């Protein structure tokens, strides 16, 4: 059983990572990040169940809290960038460089 959950978790993580690397739309990239976080949560919970204690579950809660906070800040930034540049592409916001 555990293997199935872990494979699912790995698949979700890979999809998320691919999305982050490939997609240009900031909102999609953002959702992919959320996907990666949730893949991790799944792995935590799986291991928690296999090992038989609650620590993995607790960490999953923490990750959710952080993710929620991150959504608030990240969306605010994306909305602001969109307002000033009329674009939500992550490649357009490349002024901070060498």
């Amino acid at each position, binding site marked *: 059983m555990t293997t199935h959950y872990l494979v699912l978790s790995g698949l979700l993580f890979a999809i998320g990572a691919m999305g*982050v*690397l*490939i997609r*240009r739309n900031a909102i999609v990239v953002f959702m992919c990040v959320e996907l990666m976080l949730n893949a991790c949560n799944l792995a935590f919970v799986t291991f928690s169940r296999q090992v038989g204690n609650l620590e993995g579950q607790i960490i999953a809660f923490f990750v959710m809290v952080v993710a929620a906070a991150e959504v608030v800040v990240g969306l605010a930034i994306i909305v602001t960038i969109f307002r000033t540049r009329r674009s939500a592409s*992550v490649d357009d916001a*490349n*002024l901070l*460089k*060498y």
Partner: protein
Amino acid sequence: MESQLAEIAQHTGGVIGNAWLMIAFPLVGAFILLVFNRFTNRWGHLLGVAMSLASFVVAVLAFVELLGFGPEERRRAVHLYEFIPGMVDMGLLIDPLSISFALLITGVGSLIHIYSIGYMSHDEHRRRFFSYLNLFVAAMLLLVLADNYVGLFIGWEGVGLASYLLIGFWQFKPSAATAAKKAFVVNRVGDFGLLVGMFVIWTTFGTLTFKGLGEQIAPGTQNGTMLAIGLLLLLGACGKSAQLPLQSWLLDAMEGPTPVSALIHAATMVTAGVYLVVRSGAFFFPEGSGAALAVAIVGAVTLLAGAIIGCAKDDIKKGLAGSTMSQIGYMMLGAGLGPAGYAFAIGHLITHGFFKADMFLGAGSVMHGMNDEVDMRKYGALRKVMPITFVTFFIGYLAIIGFPLLSGYFTKDGIIETAVHHQPILGWLAVLGAGITGFYMSRMIFMTFFGEKRWADDAHPHESPLVMTVPLMILSLGSIFLGGYLILSNRLLDWLTPAVGAPAERPEFHFTSVPGLATLALVAVGAIIAWMKYGRVPVPAVQPRGSFLTTFARRDLYGDALNESLFMRPGQWLTRLAVFFDNRGIDGVVNGLAAGIGGSSGRLRRIQTGFARTYALSILIGAALLTGALLFVGNI
């Protein structure tokens, strides 16, 4: 065999207990004149003279008090304060040797101070001049009065500083500034010898006081360490006393005002080396040791070199400077002969102090009347217009050539006879030197005071004021009588014995000894040759070309050329090499490193593209690598 020196007794109270006043007076004078500077312009010179005289009075009182003790109790140590805890206590040693020097320094020094009032009356910096003179006297007194080598060294350096300031007093003249630097640098070489000598003394004996050394060193001890110390101290003495090979600064030092030359040559500075040798004599220059022989050889060679240089100089002050070198050479020769020679060396030092100050101040008086002309070829026939200067200078002249019954006769003859007795070769060299002295001093007299006028058109020679001639008279009195008083019936010898040790046999002064008569004959020959060349025939107003030997002497025996090619040029090459290495080597490495880092970081920063997804990829790769690495490590 050496005899034991008298014990050094601790002393408090009385004039001797307050002998530090001797140093303090001129030091305070210098301090006041330097600190309150322009406010003291009007009376500064008087303060300087007063401080020097006050010091002289203290010296005389201390001398009288010292006479009150028996000969074996005449070495009094006065503790002043703890200087370097556990190492050196500063104190003064008042004994016959140091008080003799103190009397000479303050006595002749005061006369030179008084003379300078007149000589420097037209100089706008007269006040500064007197402050330096006071500093000079104070430093020299510390040098001779200190009861340890550290105090001696401080005075030694003070003398070097004061001579630097005074030789370069007219520092607006580039030649004076250069001469001052040269004197300082050459003296540093000697100071180095003294300093290293002190290090060796400290590591060997753990004390630097004369008392401590006297307790630790058995009379006549000779070994490698002692020889090394002796030679190092001799190097120091050579620097201060302008002995070969460190003689080159003395002739250039004539750039200073004439009273400075008198002070350097007569009362202070050049006598320091003789003092050092005589003071350390019982420890490091025992009779018959290699170090003592080295001292005597240096003295004999220098006395000849100085005399030869003196023969060819047309500058009256440089001629006198050559004669100083020569006379100090006599003193060193005497000091290298052990206790038998000490009394004569010190005696010659004292009488030389008088007649050389007399002649230098006389030369200053001549220059004062001749618009500061120093070329003797522009003098001539001055005896009529400057009678007092002429008579006093002539007395000094008779004294230095050793005319019978004058001061120089007794002391120089004493050195020569002792030298012939102990070191025959060096002794006969000294006889020869005396003959050359007869020549060059006569030449000076004939060129300056006799013959026809060769004055510059605007020269109006006149006799100097009394403030300048009275010191001359006093000094010439000393030049007449002092030598006989000190040497006949061995007065100076007996007086100095507690401080320097007694000779194996008491010398007796013979008026008709072989070396003495030979000396007189040679001096007469020298004087006659001088008369034939410069008295009988007119002196050309322009320097003739001269033979190879004359050029040799005019160029100071190529001493400067030798120093230049042996030390200065290689030194310059070394600095150039160092600069090259610094520019190309060290700077190259540093600059190259900086340029390398700058260049590579310029390329490295291109990684920062600004694309968020590139960063994301690099984070992913990094995470993957880390994970892989952890797995790999975990599998082992």
